[in-house]
């Protein structure tokens, strides 16, 4: 009885997170069945063929899932490893389904029970059992060196091994963020690594990853390529279809495009927006991408400098011509944002937000009014730090500078290397900067860690305790309507006091040549090649 109740609550919380009702379908039965054919090692093994070459344009730091900070690394890691849960997308809904787990159950609202698949082996031949899962979770939670994702399992009290294939996770509080934390992708914390390999390679595991995934790691040559080969023992039937995969590491997106057009590579894990028009015009490639859970913003320093003046911040927020920004900085591909909550969070996103009167938008008159109320009436000179980073490099900064000139703010664009940029942002050494929070699936992770008064990512240094309280309340409220209201209030505070000027929600693109078949797009910046084959 109680079991079902907890399940229901969890299902509701999850559906509140990811929108439509169909979330976690099949959960009502109390047991979530693994995807078809998982119960027994399948008879029909896939015949692997083909060598896929795909360009990876962004930096890859490590292939250790528990230590990476980059989605570009996750894209590869996910082809080598599995998580307890995985993200599934059917074109409309994002759901979490068991991956290495065969079933996932709730005993009460603080205890999750996972039953693992039988016979799954790591690439090094060691079995993937409850011990291995426990090892991975503990490695994240309290391992040395400390994982940057440890906080995701902070509420995990105890891992109890019931039998070699069953384990119970006891949490100190009901923890609805768990599915995100545990799934093998953006959460990073729930990816299962081979204990034997960690033992063997130590901190070099990131260069020698050993998982259970459809592809085995072969080699990583710096600035050159990462090679994977098919795992013929993979537990899901008919996967993988490819024999070999090479992620070609490239710094130059335009060279990657040239290579794609000349047929030297078969795809790109990321297609920068400025190349999208060319890819669309190229008949032999297919573009995959939608507006994902993200928002871009202009951050203003609330701790020092001219933008401690709230009226000046508001003037800036209202002076940003979003239409021009979308067209010129994002090549017309993005969608104007009014508040941080993005379209894929369907239960929270208001499709009529443009006319609802909430949020920020372009209104030069209003901007001038706020500007007239600012303490400093003369021309103000500010420093805008920018770097060749992010989806469109320095384009946003270049587009914004003339807009602020119209309200008497002279913007000095300062170009620095990404390394320095990160350092100065973290130290609060800037007047203006633009950034984007990406791959969010829930309003909580969208605004709370980013703008909490003492939050580590609150680089603007905005302080508002009312905002903090609203977000805290929303975390423990189960009813999604009530949650929505709280988040709206919190957002309104954020937009009104304007530590940021919100700009746009962006699409994230992948490209494959028309030879590549069976790619399943997941709106969390993933490049899962499990089902991909070459014609």
């Amino acid at each position, binding site marked *: 009885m109680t079991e079902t109740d907890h399940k229901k609550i969890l299902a509701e919380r999850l559906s509140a997170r990811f929108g439509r009702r169909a979330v976690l379908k099949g959960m009502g039965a109390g047991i979530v069945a693994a995807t078809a054919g998982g119960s027994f090692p399948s008879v029909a093994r896939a015949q692997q063929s083909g060598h896929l070459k795909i360009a990876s344009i962004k930096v890859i730091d490590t292939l250790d899932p528990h230590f990476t900070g980059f989605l570009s690394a996750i894209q590869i890691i996910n082809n080598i490893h599995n998580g307890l849960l995985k993200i599934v997308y059917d074109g409309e809904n994002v759901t979490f389904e068991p991956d290495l787990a065969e079933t996932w159950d709730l005993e009460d609202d603080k205890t999750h029970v996972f039953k693992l698949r039988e016979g799954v082996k790591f690439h090094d031949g060691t079995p993937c059992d409850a011990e291995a899962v426990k090892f991975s979770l503990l490695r994240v939670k309290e391992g040395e060196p400390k994982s*940057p994702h440890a906080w995701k399992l902070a509420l995990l009290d105890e891992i109890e091994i019931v039998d070699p294939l069953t384990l119970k996770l006891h949490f100190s509080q009901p923890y609805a963020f768990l599915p995100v934390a545990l799934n093998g992708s953006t959460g990073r914390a729930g990816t299962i690594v081979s204990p034997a390999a960690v033992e063997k390679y130590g901190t070099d595991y990131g260069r020698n990853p050993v998982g259970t995934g459809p592809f085995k790691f072969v080699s990583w040559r710096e*600035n050159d390529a990462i090679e994977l080969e098919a795992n013929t023992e993979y537990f899901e039937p008919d996967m993988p279809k490819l024999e070999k995969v090479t992620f070609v*590491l*490239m710094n130059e997106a335009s060279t990657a495009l040239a290579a794609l057009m000349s047929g030297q590579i078969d795809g790109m894990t990321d297609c920068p927006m400025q190349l999208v028009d060319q890819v669309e015009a190229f008949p032999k490639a297919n573009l995959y991408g939608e507006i994902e859970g993200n928002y871009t913003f202009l951050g203003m320093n609330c701790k020092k400098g001219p933008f401690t003046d709230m009226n000046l911040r508001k003037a800036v927020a209202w002076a940003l011509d979003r239409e021009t920004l979308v067209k010129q900085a994002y090549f017309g591909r993005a969608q104007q944002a009014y508040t941080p909550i993005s379209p894929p969070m369907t239960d929270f996103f208001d499709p009529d937000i443009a006319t609802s009167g909430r949020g920020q938008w372009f209104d030069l008159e209003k901007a001038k009014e706020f500007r007239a109320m600012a303490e400093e009436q003369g021309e103000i000179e500010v420093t805008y730090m920018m770097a060749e980073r992010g989806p469109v490099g320095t384009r946003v900064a270049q587009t914004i500078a003339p807009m602020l000139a119209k309200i008497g703010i002279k913007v000095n664009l300062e170009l620095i290397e990404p390394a320095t940029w990160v350092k100065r942002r973290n130290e609060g050494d800037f007047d203006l900067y633009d950034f984007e929070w990406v791959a969010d699936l829930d309003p909580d992770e969208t605004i709370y860690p980013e703008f909490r008064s003492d939050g580590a990512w609150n680089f603007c240094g905005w302080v508002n305790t009312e905002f903090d309280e609203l977000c805290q309340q929303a975390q423990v409220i189960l009813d999604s309507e009530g949650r929505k209201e709280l988040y709206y209030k919190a957002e309104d505070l954020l937009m009104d006091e304007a530590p940021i000027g919100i700009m746009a929600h962006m699409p994230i693109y992948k490209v494959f040549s028309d030879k590549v078949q069976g790619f399943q797009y997941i709106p969390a910046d993933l490049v899962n090649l499990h089902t991909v084959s070459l014609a």
Partner: protein
Amino acid sequence: MLVQALGKIGQTLVVLFIVSVATFGLLKLAPGDPVQIMLGSEYSQEAYESLTAEMGLDRSFLVQYADWAINFVQGDWGTSFVARTDIFTYGFKEALPVTLTLAFFSLSFAILIGVPLGVLSAVKKDTAFDAGSAVFALTGTAFPSFLLGILLIWFFGVRLGWFPVMGYVSPWEDFWTGIYHMILPGLTLSTYFIAMITRLTRASLIEVLEEPYIAAARARGEPGWRVIWIHGVRNIAMPLVTILGLQLGTLLQGTVLTETVFNLPGIGQMLTSAVLGREYGVVQAGVMMTALLFIGVNLLVDLSYPILDPRLRDRK
């Protein structure tokens, strides 16, 4: 002779020492913190401090330098911060061969195309051919290589689809595929040298052809091709080698841009990405290899003079 050689080696060591101290010091002055880059945007203060200590970045400059220098000499070049890869493997075993291959092919192209072109221009002095090669030589030395690379990629790579536009395949493993991949980058990098060698060959040969021994050879009735290719070209070898040694810097500099444009995993790419990522150890290694290469080649050039010019052998 031995004393001279020892002196040369001593000088080289001092130069390498200055280079290493200077880069080490300069990199410490550079803003940007490798620890923060490693940790990304999500980290705690403790994590930051423990990582700083783990990487030994909390020690004094001198200790860090001494530590590095002692290990470097022993072939232990350390581990890169971000990639956690062994720098000796990455730099010496992986990146250096790529750059050397690229340099080797470019120089081969340059000599194979530049010398004949120069000889022909000298022989056909003041003809249309000469004027054409003069225009090419002038354009080639001044044309920015990165622009040329882009043009070649889009014309020969994408439009015509004749050559691959990126990537490195070791010619020592797969000779023809390797060469095939080297054609566009090799041409890009060598254009400057083709042009330079053409000019130099032409100018030197014109001078040499006026020497009395050429006239003597002609008078002996030796065939024209023999006079030019044997007596003439042999005598321009020395200025050619000198210039190539001195221009090695230009060549290495060109590899930085060529490797970026064609996505070749050589020292140039390694250096630029390491400078931007504050990979101190990698930058050090890259700079040391570049310096060693430069000094080494010029040493070889010095040593090759007596071989190329018998007169120097006699004079000693």
